[in-house]
């Protein structure tokens, strides 16, 4: 039997989340005695496929198909891989792709689904997994009653562990059903650090005062190799693009480091960032709720603080 990991790639390279998912699967497999099989869909080179062995996969099923994401077609490929490998657990990311596919795969296989998992199963018999609920305000333990299971994992919840495995790569010629959706146009955010993949995020709120004040924030993000984000009013005002909006009604992110600059810390904003390992707040109001959830804080004016951040970050980068 096996644990099947649905990996994701971007421009021919595996995303970091793929290695997280494999590390997660390896921990499960170590306890259940199964092997970890990685499913790769898309145009990915042999060297890149071999990398998956470093994170515990003993086999890769490589499907060369690289059609745009049609939920039915991709679900069918995953289900065929499950059958072929006699997989009992399917693991995916809890990103847009995972949200699109995991429930379909679950219903197709009649496999109990846990989305938004944050840890390896607490127990195997019964099978219990901890997941996020109420947008991070609490966690809930979910018991899965079916023999087959599907789990989607929140990014940055587990550490990437290198465990080199001898790996076999198998070209998998899955049968492709006809797609009932047709993509007319694709706009890729190339060359940018994707918000949902970023290790560091620099985010600005209404306290930034106007769209013109974003240059130093962007410069700071650039130096750190960070993605930029904003609060909802900021994207509503059109100061920043909508894809940068984080929170309950925007993107949910869980970076290592989140800078909240001129953000009050409303419950709906924090809902989207509470998974961050470290939260830094800069706010001129010492009573702003953001300080209740921040790890580090500065009571002050962002316009005075940002230039100092930039200077210090430049120094740090120059010395490392």
């Amino acid at each position: 039997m096996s644990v099947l990991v649905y990996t994701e790639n971007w421009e021919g390279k595996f995303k970091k989340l793929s290695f997280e998912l494999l590390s997660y699967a390896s921990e499960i497999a170590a306890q259940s005695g199964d092997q970890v099989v990685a499913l790769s869909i898309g145009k990915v080179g042999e060297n890149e496929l071999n990398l998956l062995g470093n994170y515990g996969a003993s086999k890769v099923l490589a499907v060369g198909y690289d059609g745009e994401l049609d939920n039915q077609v991709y679900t069918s490929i995953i289900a065929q891989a499950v059958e072929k490998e006699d997989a009992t657990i399917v693991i995916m990311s809890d990103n847009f792709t995972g949200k699109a596919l995991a429930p379909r795969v679950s219903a197709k296989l009649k496999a109990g689904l846990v989305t938004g998992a944050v840890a390896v199963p607490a127990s195997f018999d019964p099978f219990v997994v901890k997941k996020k609920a109420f947008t991070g305000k609490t966690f809930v333990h979910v018991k899965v009653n079916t023999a087959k299971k599907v789990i989607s994992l929140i990014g940055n919840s587990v550490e990437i562990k290198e465990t080199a495995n001898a790996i076999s790569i198998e070209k998998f010629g899955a049968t492709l059903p006809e797609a009932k959706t047709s993509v007319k146009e694709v706009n890729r955010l190339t060359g940018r650090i994707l918000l949902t993949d970023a290790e560091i995020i620099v985010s600005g709120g209404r306290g930034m005062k106007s769209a013109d004040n974003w240059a130093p924030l962007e410069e700071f993000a650039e130096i750190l190799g960070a993605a930029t984000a904003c609060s909802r009013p900021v994207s509503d005002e059109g100061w920043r693009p909508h894809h940068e909006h984080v929170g309950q009604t925007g993107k949910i992110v869980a970076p290592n480091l989140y800078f909240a600059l001129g953000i009050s810390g409303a419950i709906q904003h924090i809902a989207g960032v509470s998974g961050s390992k470290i939260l830094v707040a800069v706010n001129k109001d010492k009573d702003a709720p953001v300080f209740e959830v921040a790890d580090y804080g500065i009571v002050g004016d962002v316009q005075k603080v940002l230039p100092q951040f930039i200077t210090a970050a430049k120094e740090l980068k120059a010395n490392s």
Partner: protein
Amino acid sequence: MKILVCISNVPDTTTKIKLVNNNSGYDKTGVQWIINPWDELALTRALLLKEEQGSPITEISVINVGTKDTEPTLRKALAVGADDAIRVDAEAKDAYYVAAQIAEVVKNNGYDIVLCGIESSDYNGSAVGGMLSELLDVPSVSSVSGLFIEDGKVKLNREIDGGTQVLATETPFVAIVQKGIALDPRIPAMRGIMMARKKPLVVLPPADIEALTEYIDYEMPQAKSACKMIDEDNAGDMIRLLHEEAKAI
């Protein structure tokens, strides 16, 4: 064309969670129950589509799988402008259970477009819409931020990891909607509230379906340690701390 909007009944997003009964549940006293924010926006979009000149949409129904307690939420959806409501009279045991109940209703009533939200704000499942589409064996378009009907054909904007797509799909299909689908939710007006009392709210018995999962208990996140404050005039120290102490840069 008929649209069905799936409505999840959830605590208001500002609700503070307090665990009770040995962490087996949360305190529901004083909780205000609302239409899940995404579903409210989905309904708003459906209404806007129906109001367009020459719109092919003839009927907008809303559905909830829930006990009698959820009826005020369905009434609110009617007050906002839905034509009729369906309640499948059962506790929403898990996402599969809910999706399978809705699938039964869709099979019997033939909707062209089913709208779901990207997630319920309580259990953040992101599951019902996708499961429903699979059970119906129809296309699902997820993370939809725009839904248009042009010459009877459906066009959607969708966000993917790392970009956006414009796509077309066959009907029937399930659209799972997120930010952008509508700007602000429509608020019921007095007239709407009056009319809602006369609109049909059909209660159906549940189909015989088994849930695949169950919630056992809850766990609060670890309390954060106190926020470490740095002086505004020495803001550069923050960066050094994040490097040396937090090892985050």
